[in-house]
């Protein structure tokens, strides 16, 4: 047996060892990575939610309500008109509030401002708030996703 044979045998064994230990590592890591990644739970796509009675929404005020797993904000303008938006700020996800003094939707986390059509008008938010449908059925205020 020549020296070259010995070297190539050593290389083959090294290669097999690397392959084996690499595979072992992969086999051990894969379930861990999968375990740590949360399972996709398709959010129960809430289409419509009853959020309260009309008297819960006084004139010129805003109220954060539960819309599925996320907060929504229902604003009642001074004139009586109801508007609803997703309350999740498009910047970094804080929950916005109605500011009577500014007549705006305002996020206190980074001073983002949206007008009463949901448009981002000042501060860092990059997109408007998602607009939702709002309707009054009998005495109940109903919020639903736009088609």
């Amino acid at each position: 047996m020549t020296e070259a044979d010995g070297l190539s045998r050593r290389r083959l064994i090294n290669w097999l060892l690397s392959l084996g230990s690499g595979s072992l590592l992969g086999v051990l890591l894969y379930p861990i990575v999968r375990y740590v990644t949360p399972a996709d739970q398709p959010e129960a796509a809430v289409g419509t939610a009853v959020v309260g009675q009309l008297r819960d929404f006084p004139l010129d005020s805003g109220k954060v309500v539960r819309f599925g797993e996320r907060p929504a904000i229902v604003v009642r303008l001074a004139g009586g008109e109801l508007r609803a938006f997703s309350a999740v700020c498009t910047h970094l996800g804080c929950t916005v509030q109605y500011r009577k003094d500014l007549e705006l939707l305002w996020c206190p986390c980074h001073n983002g401002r949206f007008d009463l059509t949901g448009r981002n008008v000042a501060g860092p938010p990059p997109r408007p708030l998602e607009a939702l449908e709002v309707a009054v059925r009998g005495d109940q205020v109903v919020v639903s996703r736009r088609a």
Partner: protein
Amino acid sequence: MSVARTVGRWLDDRLRVGAARDFLAHKLVPVEHSIWYYFGGASLFLFGVQVATGVLLLLYYRPAPDSAFESVRFIMAHVRFGWLVRSLHAWAANLMIAAVFTHLFSVFFLKAYRPPREVTWLTGCGLLGLTLAFGFSGYLLPWNQLAFFATKVGTDIMGEVPGVGPVLRFVLRGGENVGGATLTRFFGFHVALLPLATTLLLLVHLALVQLHGMSERLGDSARTARHMPFYPHFVLREVLVWLAVLAVLIVLATFFPWELGQKADPFASAPSGIRPEWYFTFMSQSFKYVPPRLFGLEGEQVAILGFGAVFGLLVLVPFLDRRAARGEPSPLVTAGGVLLLGFMVVMTLLAYFKPY
């Protein structure tokens, strides 16, 4: 032969205590050192306080959305000395982060990262990251309103990191939203993963400090600097500093007990004047000034890349600062550090005195 000596020799034969004793007897530190040399030790001491108080809190804390807040309230209201243990843990966390930042900037301005201590610096940067991760994950555990939104924003910021962001946010939160899954995850990180990682990295960091000894001032060398024995001269000074830190900690924890706030409500507006813990406010405040779009990217992505670049420069400074490596002053690096520190201080002050 006395019993003590017999036992001593028996132990020495088996544990080689003599080697450690010799090392300690010969270890020297520079005479010319200042208060800034003590903040690494103070950080270590506060880490010890955190381990001790953290273990005690574990006996009563419950990591679930419908019981976390109540369990912390129970600790503070009903457990004997519970108020003290919880307040110590919260205050020591803040003091530890202050000590770690002071240690970082001391080492930076003293240029103690210069060869051969580059790896010590790198492990130190790792420990800074772990300390901040401790602060971020621990902040959520009482499940109060401020913590809830801080976690929302913090994980959303990580979600904006180009590429891995969305996956990172999903994994950290344990789902799309911040909720019960996030709380159990953060609890696991805070009490198991981070302590393990910190202990390992800390051992390397401390071993390297022993290996290289304490850094001499720029321009001095091991030969030209005057030295004094580590034991007992330096150790006694260190003990004095630790006792002072303990005194400050106990006064703060007793007379300014850490508040619990209001229980988190995912369906309430973020409260006005909300800000994260003080050590993150400089970042949070900067986000307020960034326009929605910048250089064709979303504004906050630019801000994140900017902070990432600055942190990258900071980590790599031992390799960039060639002048300090040669033992010469490097005013440019010092100026960069002053600029960074100034930016952090100004943004933090703005967050407290002129938030909007």
